[in-house]
């Protein structure tokens, strides 16, 4: 069988669930998977790619620390004739040389959550808490949520934008402080569900459960729990499980020539609120799910998202 | 008689102790015994093995072989706790104390008085510390941070700590090295008392007069071997010296060669420093050796610090060096002007223990072994070898790290740095502290040779013999002022001591 290198940017759960899904899918397909981690260090990530090539893998499936720092990796992969497929992140300058890129539209991802909450909060104050700054995605998430709020026709004003490094405790602290500073806050957006958990704890501690709406992203299991408990209004899911299985299939397709390389694919997303919480796409993929995702028709290439002209 | 008479009980017996370091034999098959109530002197050249022997007896270091019998028990090796339990107390050559703990806490460290539930009883500790210090006739503030005391006082604390342990055996490794005469005399009285009370005392020193004066018996070590045990009452200094050195040296103290001193080289004009120096005016001529002394706090060390550029705070008055104004803002400025300061605290402030002998010697004059800014390691090795010869360093191994040297050899190496930097004015604190008789003479000869070569030497010393033997002029400082100036010609230690202790206004006879 073939050997695939799965690389993740760091220890975050998001990558872990993707890794688990790929693992079980690969088992079913009789493909061998070797996993690598970059510990959020782009230098290490490049090293991982080089080492995987040396090891002689047939393809590389990678959650990159930063796509824009992958040129060397891609060049090396290309030189060695090893297709490299990227999940999460997008950089037009490299698309042509990749086996493919699967990504959500960062610039609109938070919008539906913003619109949903905007409808429930026609006026008042809201705040956003985003992840680790400097990679572009954290910034884009917060902005897209604000765009959604505006689009919903809500008059609510954004009173605070903080960064919490995707970290639960930092989000908990930041949220409690925002709540203190703005007692009649109506809503908080957390750029991923890990931070949403922290925010929801802050809301509980402030005794404002229900009074302050919470919107999240990712559709992570613990995010879904919040929705079930009625503590979060909506989360926009981009399950790493299904995305990784699709990406694996696409990569294998590129390897055996059945799939055209260098295409962009829209990553599967799913708005989740209490209405459809029952049939949420699980991060923690059951064998049945994986079977399904292996049977599903392959995603087709599409036009990559264009950043809003500032 | 050089053996213990049958009646006396042994306090400690050592049999066949041997110890080597990096191939060098520090101690070779030493047998040694001390009776209760005996004061036993231990003498030998620098590097003879005295401190190593003391450390082995106290349990600070294990011997390679041999056994130690104390308190009826035989040990292959002791650790500090066992040594203490066996009733052995020690004052190390380099007192190991805690600068950030109080005097009392230092004295009782490891044996703190406790209340119920093992809670510290600092009240009792301070009370007992006061009593102890009083008993020893020391007036030290028990609550003061030890780091704020000077080396002499710290030495006293170390002694107090040892006495506190109420041991049967007290090991004193050069306890008077940092003490002035008065403090030393006091210590001797203390030692005699303790001996009377039945304590066995081993006393290591290079001051042979002291040793002869206080010891019942004296053991002489040479190159790690025991060469003799003599009776302290009957033997004399010359025979002792010849046994220590291994050949006869003329016992004549004074090597003074008449040097023609040149014109004024270094001039202090009415120099004062807040709370330290008052209106000091002094002229040192080229080729002259001036000795500074006085009671602790008298200002001798302060004056040295000012000359060396260590301390220019709140300084007033004028200084001139070689005819030009001299006002060093930093030590570097002073060194640049050819003024080299050698501190008393050689381990703490003098040597770089992690560097070799050669690198310590060249440190203050790297330029002279550099070509176009690049160091010539070959040249460095050569000059270091030559300097080791001149100073009779033991072992002769320029690449050996200085921390492996014995105390005296370390001091020689430090002097070597200043000599190699070939200064014009040498400012030394206690230049031969802890140095053996022969080396002391060698160092004195070196200083005279430097002076002979036209350099000026100013040294601070509390060693009366040294002052008389080395200085052309002796300046006695008191309360930051020059109290009087003495010529060593015909001066004897007793008169000098009197001069140091009584203000010039009072009459000296």
């Amino acid at each position, binding site marked *: 069988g073939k050997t695939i290198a799965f690389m993740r940017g760091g220890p975050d759960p998001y990558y*872990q669930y993707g890794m688990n899904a790929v693992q079980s899918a690969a088992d079913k397909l009789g493909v061998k998977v070797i996993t690598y981690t970059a510990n959020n260090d782009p230098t290490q990530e490049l090293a991982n790619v080089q080492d995987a090539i040396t090891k002689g893998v047939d393809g590389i499936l990678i959650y990159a620390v930063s796509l824009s720092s992958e040129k060397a990796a891609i060049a090396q992969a290309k030189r060695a004739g090893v297709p490299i497929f990227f999940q999460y992140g997008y950089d037009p300058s490299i698309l042509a040389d990749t086996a493919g890129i699967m990504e959500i539209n960062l610039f609109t991802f938070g919008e539906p959550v913003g619109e949903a909450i905007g409808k429930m909060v026609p006026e008042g104050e809201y705040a956003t808490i985003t992840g680790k700054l400097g990679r572009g995605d954290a910034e884009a998430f917060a902005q897209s949520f604000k765009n959604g709020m505006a689009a919903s026709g809500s008059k609510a004003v954004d009173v605070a934008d903080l960064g919490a490094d995707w970290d639960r405790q930092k989000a908990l602290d930041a949220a409690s402080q925002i709540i203190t500073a703005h007692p009649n806050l109506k809503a908080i957006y957390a750029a991923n569900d890990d931070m949403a958990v922290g925010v929801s704890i802050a809301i*509980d501690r402030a005794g404002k459960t229900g009074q302050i709406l919470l919107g999240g992203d990712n559709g992570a299991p613990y995010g879904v729990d919040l929705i079930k408990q009625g503590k979060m209004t909506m989360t926009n899911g981009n399950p790493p499980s299904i995305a990784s299985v699709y990406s694996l299939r696409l990569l294998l397709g590129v390897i055996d020539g059945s799939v055209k390389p260098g295409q962009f694919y829209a990553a599967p997303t799913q708005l989740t609120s209490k209405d459809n919480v029952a049939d949420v796409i699980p991060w923690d993929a059951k064998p049945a799910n994986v079977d399904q995702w292996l049977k599903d028709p392959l995603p087709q290439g599409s036009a990559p998202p264009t950043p809003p002209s500032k | 008689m050089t053996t213990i008479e049958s009646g006396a009980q042994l306090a400690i017996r050592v049999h066949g102790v041997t110890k080597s370091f990096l191939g060098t034999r520090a101690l070779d098959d030493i047998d040694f015994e001390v009776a209760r109530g005996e004061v036993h002197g231990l003498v030998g050249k620098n590097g003879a093995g005295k401190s190593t022997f003391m450390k082995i007896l106290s349990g600070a270091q294990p011997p390679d072989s041999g056994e130690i019998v104390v308190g009826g028990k035989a040990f292959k090796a002791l650790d500090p706790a066992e040594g203490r339990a066996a009733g052995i107390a020690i004052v190390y050559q380099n007192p190991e104390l*805690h600068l950030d703990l109080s005097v009392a806490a230092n004295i009782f460290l490891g044996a703190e008085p406790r209340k119920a539930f093992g809670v510290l009883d600092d009240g009792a500790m301070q009370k007992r510390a006061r009593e102890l210090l009083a008993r020893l006739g020391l007036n030290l503030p028990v609550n003061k941070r030890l780091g704020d005391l000077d080396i002499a006082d710290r030495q006293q604390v170390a002694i107090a700590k040892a006495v506190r342990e109420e041991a049967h055996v007290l090991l004193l490794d050069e306890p008077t090295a940092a003490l002035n005469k008065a403090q030393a005399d006091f210590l001797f009285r203390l030692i005699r008392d303790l001996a009377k009370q039945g304590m066995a005392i081993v006393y290591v020193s290079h001051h042979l007069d002291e040793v002869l004066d206080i010891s019942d018996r004296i053991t002489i070590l040479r190159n790690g071997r025991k060469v003799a045990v003599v009776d302290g009452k009957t033997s004399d200094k010359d025979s002792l010296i010849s046994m220590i050195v291994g050949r006869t040296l003329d016992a004549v103290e004074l090597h003074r060669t008449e040097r023609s001193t040149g014109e004024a080289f270094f001039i202090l004009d009415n120099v004062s420093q807040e709370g330290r120096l008052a209106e000091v005016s002094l002229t040192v001529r080229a080729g002259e050796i001036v000795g500074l002394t006085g009671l602790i706090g008298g200002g001798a060390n302060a004056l040295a610090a000012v000359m060396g550029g260590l301390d220019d705070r709140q300084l007033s008055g004028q200084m001139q060096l070689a005819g030009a104004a001299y006002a060093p803002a930093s030590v570097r400025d002073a060194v640049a002007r050819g003024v080299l300061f050698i501190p008393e605290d050689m381990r703490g402030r003098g040597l770089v223990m992690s560097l070799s002998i050669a690198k310590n010697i060249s440190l203050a004059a790297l330029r002279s072994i550099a070509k176009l800014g690049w160091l010539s390691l070959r040249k460095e090795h050569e000059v270091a070898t030559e300097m080791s010869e001149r100073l009779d360093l033991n072992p002769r191994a320029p690449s050996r790290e200085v921390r492996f040297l014995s105390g005296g050899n370390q001091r020689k190496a430090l002097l070597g740095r200043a000599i190699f930097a070939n200064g014009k004015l040498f400012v030394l604190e206690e230049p031969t502290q802890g140095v053996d008789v022969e080396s002391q003479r060698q160092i004195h000869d070196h200083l005279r040779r430097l002076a002979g070569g036209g350099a000026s030497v100013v040294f601070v010393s509390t060693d009366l013999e040294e002052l008389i033997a080395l200085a052309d002029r002796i300046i006695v400082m008191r309360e930051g002022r020059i109290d009087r100036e003495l010529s060593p010609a015909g001066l004897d230690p007793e008169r000098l001591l009197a001069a140091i202790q009584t203000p010039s206004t009072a009459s000296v006879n």
Partner: protein
Amino acid sequence: MTSPAATAAQPTLRRPNFVMALGVGRFTLLIVLLLIVAVTAIGNPRFLTAHNLLNILFQVSTLGIVAAGQTILLIAGGLDLSVGAALSVAGLATALVVVATGSVVLSALTGAGVGLVIGALTGMLVATNRATPFIITLGTMTFLQGVAILMSGGSPINGTDALFNLFGMGDFLHVPWPVYVMLLAIVAVFLVLRFTPLGRYAFAIGGNEEAARLSGIPVRRTKIAFYALNGLFVGVAGVILTGILDSGLPSMGTGYELRAIAAVVIGGTPLIGGRGTVIGTLGGVLLLGLVSNSMNLLGVGANFQSAVLGLIITAAVLLQKKA
């Protein structure tokens, strides 16, 4: 009767001790704290509400516990960079046990025990090797991070409501439980340092290890005890943080090591050991908590916070002089 030699010759030694003696070191910190309080209070009236102040205490509680333990280590001339990773491991152990048994007591004991054991083992490595604790614990830190990932399988461990209700939500007289635990930790360390031989030995070993050894102090055993004690504190912090976050996360302790050390040093305990106070550490912890709270209440933008925090830490340290 101090000789000039002792004073003039060692200016670098003398002044700071003098400063310490007057406790001015601690005052400077106090002044910095009050300054921040004043500025924030003016900028945002809600800052000085009991609610917010309790919030700050709640937010620093786990850091305070870890820093209290670290204080003993630093005074004793030690250091433990692995506390963050150890906290994660202890927290995950706590979470796994509470999920399995639902027992708060059992899980708390497990978390504390795990911390204690990790600390003791670290202590043995440090006490029996010549390598500095900095580098040894840098190695164990990496190792423990790996262990945390393996324990959690890389994803959060949920179902810890029992702990959450106690430490996340629970309070007594409006004061959250974690705050009590932190204060308890501070007081405990204060008493140990001030009134027990063990505490005295910490100062002795940190000040001059060889001298301590020659004074017959069982240096190794004592060091191991310090690291074990520190580990216990870390374990307790892990238990509490699991409750606060209502989950065990492999990354829950990330960054605690540097924040804790910073707090201790800002609190006036020099890294070279030999002196220090846990009260100062509390001040350092509060400073860190205050700064982030005040930045958020004053609405300092996300992009600026790290820069501002860095400036304030540096300033606080430099004011601290002999750190």
